[in-house]
């Protein structure tokens, strides 16, 4: 374990020294600033509106804004996960950075575990911080409190860990560019699956719902994301609840609680595959 922590520390130092974290922090501050501006403007416009509509506009606005924040947090977390790991094995080996480390007594699996630890810690912390900051802003701007903060935050965190695992697996067999493209395509496919599920639910098309459900289990980050969106707005009732649930930032359905265990097992299996591929790879 201490070897894995040494490698994780090395990877984290690299992220700090290469100013990756600084750039991410600055740009995230810009995003949160814009989000705050938008949130305050949106809630202000509600107060000034005299339209007599029979829906809870405050809940609709708050739920939609937080759903948007959750999507952005996931997207940025995935970007971070990919760029922190896409060249972990093959890319570093091609540049001659990996060989001096691999010949040490620390095993290849430990090296991968260290990279997983570092990237997971950064990405999971990042998505949780961004999401919670957005929740605080939404609360301050419109006094909107989501149905749950823990489930969406934990779902985001575990979701990006699954993406880190995929990216590490890709890095053992694919070149840096190919791996980056592959992971983003997996991510986009997962999102598309989730949207299909929402469309299927809205139109009552069972085949689409089933396809989405299968996709959620194949790429569990999507199921965790959908689950988080659902938990975010589960208490919003009436017409506002229906609109939020059917909108792009409403969870299509509440997935099984087993998704948490499945996501952990899935990540472990992907990492085991990565370790096997790395072990068999000539450097």
């Amino acid at each position, binding site marked *: 374990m201490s070897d894995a922590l040494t490698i994780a520390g090395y990877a984290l130092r690299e992220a700090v020294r290469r100013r990756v974290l600084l750039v991410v922090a600055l740009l995230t501050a810009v995003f949160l600033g814009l989000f705050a501006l938008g949130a305050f403007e949106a809630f202000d416009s509600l107060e000034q509106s005299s339209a007599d509509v029979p829906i809870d506009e405050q809940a609709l606005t708050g739920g939609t804004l937080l759903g948007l924040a959750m999507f952005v947090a996931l997207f940025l977390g995935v970007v971070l996960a990919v760029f922190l790991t896409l060249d972990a094995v093959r890319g570093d080996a091609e*540049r001659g950075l990996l060989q001096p480390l691999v010949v040490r007594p620390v095993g290849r699996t430990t090296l991968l575990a260290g990279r997983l630890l570092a990237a997971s810690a950064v990405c999971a912390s990042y998505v949780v911080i961004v999401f919670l900051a957005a929740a605080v802003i939404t609360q301050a701007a419109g006094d909107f409190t989501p149905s749950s903060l823990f489930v969406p935050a934990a779902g985001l965190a575990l979701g990006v860990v699954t993406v880190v695992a995929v990216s590490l697996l890709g890095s053992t067999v694919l070149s840096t560019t190919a791996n980056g493209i592959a992971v983003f395509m997996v991510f986009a496919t997962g999102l598309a699956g989730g949207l299909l599920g929402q469309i299927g639910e809205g139109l009552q098309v069972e085949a689409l719902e089933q396809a989405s459900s299968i996709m959620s289990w194949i790429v569990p980050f999507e199921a965790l994301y959908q689950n988080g969106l659902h938990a975010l707005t589960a208490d919003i009732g009436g017409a506002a609840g229906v609109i939020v649930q059917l909108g792009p930032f409403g969870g299509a359905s509440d997935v099984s609680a087993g998704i948490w265990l499945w996501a952990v097992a899935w990540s472990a299996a992907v990492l085991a595959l990565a370790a096997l591929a790395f072990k068999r790879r000539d450097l």
Partner: protein
Amino acid sequence: MTPPALSARALSKRYGKTTALDAVDLEVGAGELVGLLGPNGAGKSTLVKIACGLVRPTGGEAHVGGAPAGSREARAATGYLAELFRFPAWASADEVLKLHQRLARSDGGAAEREALLARVGLSGEGGRRMATMSKGMQQRLGIGQALIGDPRLVLLDEPTSALDPGGRRTVRDLLVGLREQGVGVLLNSHLLSEIELVCDRVVIIDGGRVVTEGRPEDLTAPGGVEVETSAGVRRLPDARREDVPRIVRELVAAGDEVYGVRVVTGTLEDAYLAAVVGRDG
């Protein structure tokens, strides 16, 4: 009995249809400096990479200090400098060494790091970032990191390719020091003069096979005797060192004036070319 620092038996490696190594036998004893020579693509780097666990052999076996090459025990006993390596540009020399100390489980601390930097001629450069170091300085540091944790076997793949003459001298002295400490060294280099100067034994491989091996002095064939006389330089290609007194006596008796005599010896380059080029036709 102490096992050899490195032992390879019938070692083979194939990459698809290409044979990189073909039943290679090789041994590096404790305190022995062995030079590994061969043309590009001969299989030298593959052999070194198998020894340090970066590449898995297709056949045969290799052991480091008695432990299977690539095992944790073997890697703990091995120091390695790759031909193409890089340290992270953001790290300082001291940070690189500290990281490798942790991974090698060396408890030498700052004293070991300072001693290693001094040994490779980088005293006082511990705080310097890789991004500001020349290729030669990074190569010196690479040799230093290979020595962390007092390895039994040191594998150096082209360790002096980026070094100036002063740096090469430093590395030669360092290699002699390692021999005195009982460390086995396998030195893969194209610089034949370096190998001739420092190595106890030379192994030449070509096409994945060992084509010749032996002590440098045994591989270098005698080249005759050159005598400078009043009539010019006379070359006696079949003469040997023991023949010099007789040759001088005969020339003087014949009325020639002798100004100088040189015993010509072949070089390792000659032996290398005879083994490799001659074999390749």
